[in-house]
């Protein structure tokens, strides 16, 4: 089994700009395998990002790619999707981009349940700007702006998305590319707003400051921090402390999708004329 993901790449723009060992490559590969498995044409996909290391990925993908402003990718994506509900709109974002500066667009996109798939690469740090702590940096972790240890309570992005009304929420991690592809594929085919949080390694900015400078060490450490959703059901809150539950966390196929709901608005207005 060898998925043909290279069809979706702009090979003339490779090599990429990410650090050797970066988890983003694993994630992009999972996304492209999912596109391939679904036989989606690149002509039908808009791939949209904000600012940061993760947000540089559209440049390498041969589709409609939009590298926007910091935190705002979802608002641009909403404009694209609402104009063309028949097409696929995928957003990729880092933890700072999605949950800090873009936090408002994140929760409202969840609430709106517009059929966009959001992949959040959570590497617990602002990588591109030089390793500042982000809204997902664990308590006690060191960052360029928390040299004495982070005291800022992190978000649980998946729980946030679920609480805000996203109708598909999954968490994967770079240590398990096969599961990740399956979770992404589930999000892509889900009708409604889908969030796939991916725990990823930034050994350069996060690991280096937290005794995990080797990418394999950091990836292993992330893998060890995860618990599968099935297994987690049988665990106590104490046992789950500090663990990240991975797998499909939430799916609601009943809640109306925004663009479809708006079609009814148009029909109502037409009837009233």
């Amino acid at each position, binding site marked *: 089994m060898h998925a043909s993901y290279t069809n979706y790449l*702009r090979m003339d*723009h490779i090599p990429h700009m990410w650090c050797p060992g970066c988890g983003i490559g694993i994630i992009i590969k999972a996304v492209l395998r999912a596109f391939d498995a679904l036989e989606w044409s*690149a*002509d*039908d996909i*808009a791939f*949209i990002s904000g600012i940061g290391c993760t947000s540089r990925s*559209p*440049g390498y993908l*041969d*589709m*409609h*790619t*939009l*590298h*926007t*402003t910091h935190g*705002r990718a*979802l*608002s*641009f*994506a*909403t*404009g*694209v*999707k*609402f*104009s*063309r509900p028949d*097409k696929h709109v995928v957003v990729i974002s880092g933890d700072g981009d999605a949950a800090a500066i873009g936090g*408002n*667009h994140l*929760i*409202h996109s969840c609430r709106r349940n517009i059929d966009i798939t959001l992949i959040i690469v959570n590497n617990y740090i602002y990588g591109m700007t030089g390793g500042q702590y982000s809204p997902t940096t664990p308590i006690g972790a060191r960052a360029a702006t928390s040299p004495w240890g982070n005291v800022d309570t992190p978000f649980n992005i998946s729980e946030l998305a679920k609480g805000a009304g996203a109708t598909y929420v999954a968490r994967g991690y770079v240590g398990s590319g096969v599961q990740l592809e399956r979770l992404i594929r589930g999000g892509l085919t889900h009708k409604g707003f889908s969030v796939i949080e991916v725990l990823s390694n930034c050994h350069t900015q996060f690991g280096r400051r937290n005794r995990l400078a080797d990418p394999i060490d950091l990836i292993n450490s992330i893998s060890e921090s995860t618990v599968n959703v099935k297994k987690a059901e049988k665990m106590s809150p104490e046992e789950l402390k500090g663990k990240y539950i991975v797998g499909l966390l939430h799916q609601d196929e009943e809640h109306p999708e925004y663009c479809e709901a*708006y079609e009814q*608005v*148009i029909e*109502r*207005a*037409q009837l*009233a*004329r």
Partner: protein
Amino acid sequence: MDNTETKEHQVVFWSGNQIVAEAAIAGGCRFFAGYPITPSSEIAHVMSKRLPEVRGKFIQMEDEIAAMGAIIGASLTGERPMTATSGPGFSLKQENIGYACMIETPCVIVNVMRGGPSTGLPTALGQADVMQARWGTHGDRPVIALTPAYLEEVYSEVIRAFNLAEMLRMPVFVLIDEVLGHLSERVEIPDPSEYELIERPRPIAPPEEYVPYDSSLGDVPPIADYFTGYRWHTTGLNHDKTGFPTTDPDICQFEEERMMRKVTNHLDIIESYDEFMTEDAEIGVIAFGSTARAAMVAIADARDRGIKAGLLRPITLWPFPEEPVRKLDQHVKAIVVPEANLGQMIYEVERIAGCNGPVVGVNKVGGVPIYPGEILSKIEEVA
């Protein structure tokens, strides 16, 4: 039969904000994203009702920034989108406005100006976003800002804003103010045959040959709609003609200068102004928007008192109509610049008018209009 056959015009008595919305629909707008803000909200009200009637889309976004992002996204699919806001919202949109300039995406932004910095005077008149419209976003970029003074002109300028945005692949501002937004007056709605809807240049080359910022095709390269087979990359980073990031100093310089030329080389289609009794004027008055209406009354009153005053009214505030100011400056002994701010447009007038005579402002920021008598007093003072 007379070939200027009179059209059956719909005559309406609408507010300025309603005129903006109806003109946008007439101008081909089928996508509006907005956020509630006084005194522009009625534009969103009308759009939310009218757009679904014409199978268009209205969306109320979570904030001003998102509304700006959404219209850029819509524009990339080929829509002629609009958003409307007021001072604080215009401030919030500025980063994404710069982005629209950088990626060269057509869109229309209406700013119904209110009083004061910060929250200021939400329900009252201001004209203090003159310089924000010009310089509000970081970096250099071309700018077009239209400032109609009558509701009939609001209608035609909103349609023109869409056409200019499309022709030049850039955001276009329509700056009205609270007075124009909320006053109602009689407007004859033109028949669609009386104006043209101009579309953005789209590529003729096949997708494999498409270069999104190819200046060999002129300073306004064709733009491909999403999902039409043209897969191109868009970034707010400085980019070369292919759309991909570059830090090459010569390319960055070239591309930024090309963007500016979209305005400076098309003044013939962009620049617009109106003159009232300037021919023999000895005192020039330069005013825009609702303030220009008060200036007209002041000029008529001045003429009654034997003072030859005349009005130059910029309809394009940006690019600022330089030649008409220069021409006026040659035969007047003073220029009066009334504006509902503490002196913004006057900088442009001073820059252009030279030293032929004094350039004096009439400035009010308390939320009430500048009255004709106040302009008249200044005219008399310098006469």
